[in-house]
């Protein structure tokens, strides 16, 4: 293990935050308070999670691990819902989409033998999957909202010609799924040539052979592709109906 972060070095690294605070203060960005809150929250949350994970890893109980995974999924869904701008039933839709994307992806990884049902593997992997699904679904919601507003006349004309809701929304739904998946695709394209991604960096940092670390990263690319595509498809196809009323008329949700 190459890691040598002790409390003293962490305190010294806090100086980096001071640099950011000075820049914010000098440039009158008005983000000093947000930065301090952000740093304090990050420290407190990570400490709690660190001790919680230490306990969960030690106990190694199936139910406790599953509960923690479900909490991660709920939190991710709640955050995705916050980006829905009034789309009806956004919370249950987000829960369904993130649950399905996490379950399918974890299932395939376990079936292939890439990971085992032990808390030290299941919890971090679930977190990565759920957070990527959350970002993808948030982007889908934002795109659905903006496209239904922008394409209001085209959608109305399609309805006026007798199109069903799926036909009237097809282009918008496709565009939104693409928007949700795009960051994962872009990140896969530039992986290794622009950035050394989180998991791989972590493993290298911890002293693992880079050639071995890339195998894990490749697995992460595969799982994130699957998670964001399942999450985006489900969320878009479940959410677009929220832009219509019972009489199949276009109604834009109010924020």
């Amino acid at each position, binding site marked *: 293990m190459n890691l040598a972060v002790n409390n003293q070095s962490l305190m010294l690294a806090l100086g980096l935050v001071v640099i950011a605070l000075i820049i914010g203060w000098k440039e009158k960005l008005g983000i000093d308070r947000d930065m301090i809150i952000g740093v304090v929250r990050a420290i407190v949350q990570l400490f709690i999670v660190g001790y919680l994970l230490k306990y969960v890893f030690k106990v190694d109980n199936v139910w406790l691990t599953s509960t923690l995974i479900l909490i991660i999924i709920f939190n991710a869904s709640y955050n995705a819902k916050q980006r829905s701008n009034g789309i009806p039933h956004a919370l249950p839709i987000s829960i369904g989409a993130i649950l399905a994307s996490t379950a399918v992806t974890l299932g395939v990884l376990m079936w292939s033998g890439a990971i085992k049902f032990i808390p030290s593997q299941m919890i971090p992997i679930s977190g990565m999957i759920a957070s990527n699904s959350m970002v993808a679904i948030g982007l889908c919601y934002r795109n659905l909202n903006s496209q239904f507003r922008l394409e209001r006349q085209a959608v109305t004309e399609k309805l*006026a010609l*007798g199109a069903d809701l799926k036909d009237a929304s097809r282009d918008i739904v496709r565009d939104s799924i693409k928007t949700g998946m795009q960051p994962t695709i872009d990140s896969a394209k530039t992986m290794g040539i622009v950035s050394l991604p989180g998991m791989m960096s972590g493993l290298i940092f911890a002293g693992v052979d880079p050639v071995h670390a890339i195998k894990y990263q490749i697995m992460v690319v595969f799982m994130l592709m699957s998670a964001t595509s399942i999450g985006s498809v489900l969320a878009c196809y479940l959410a677009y109906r929220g832009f219509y009323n019972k*009489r199949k008329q276009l109604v834009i949700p109010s924020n």
Partner: protein
Amino acid sequence: MSLISLKGVSYRSGDEQILNGIDLDIEAQEWVTIAGPSGGGKSTLVRIIASLLSKTAGKLTFDGQPIESYDPIAYRRRVSYSVQQPTLFGQTVRDNLSFPYQIRQLPFDQQRAIDALEYVGLAASDLDKPVIDLSGGQRQRVALLRNVMIYPEVLILDEVTAGLDAENKSFVWQMIRHFNQEDKLTIIAITHDQSEIDDAQRLVMVENGRIVAGGAQ
């Protein structure tokens, strides 16, 4: 029995009363021209008839049955609506003329599309013309054809000649006359054009959310 019958139809959006107690009967194959000042409620009225908006009070029947008893999609295939400055879908004219077939899961009748294009002064080769290369008048003709590729019973036209030059306006009006007289479609057309108002077979004037003339025959 009238094909379309409105009794005391009102529409309210928030605090704003847009339509107030509209009574209107429209017979099959009739051509009704709707005119009146902007903001008077004409478009809201035809959108309610097209089932794109729901009235907030009153009764609307189609073919003797309340509008609520119809599946909205099946209804809109019988009562079709076209707007001023329509949006053309996809990339080409074909994408637009095939849309009515696509949504009904029917094979595209290419020969009918070519005949229709030639009837409106376009060529068979224009079927694959990019929509961005069409002039304003051509766009309106293609949009109108899109509404009648599979005949509806009622064609609602919301200022479809607005913004067109005299030649295109006259051509589009000829098309509508053909739909009414030859194809036996019922026409409900909103217009601001004085010559179209002067030529109206039946003129309904809508002002401040009420019918002020022509509601009862």
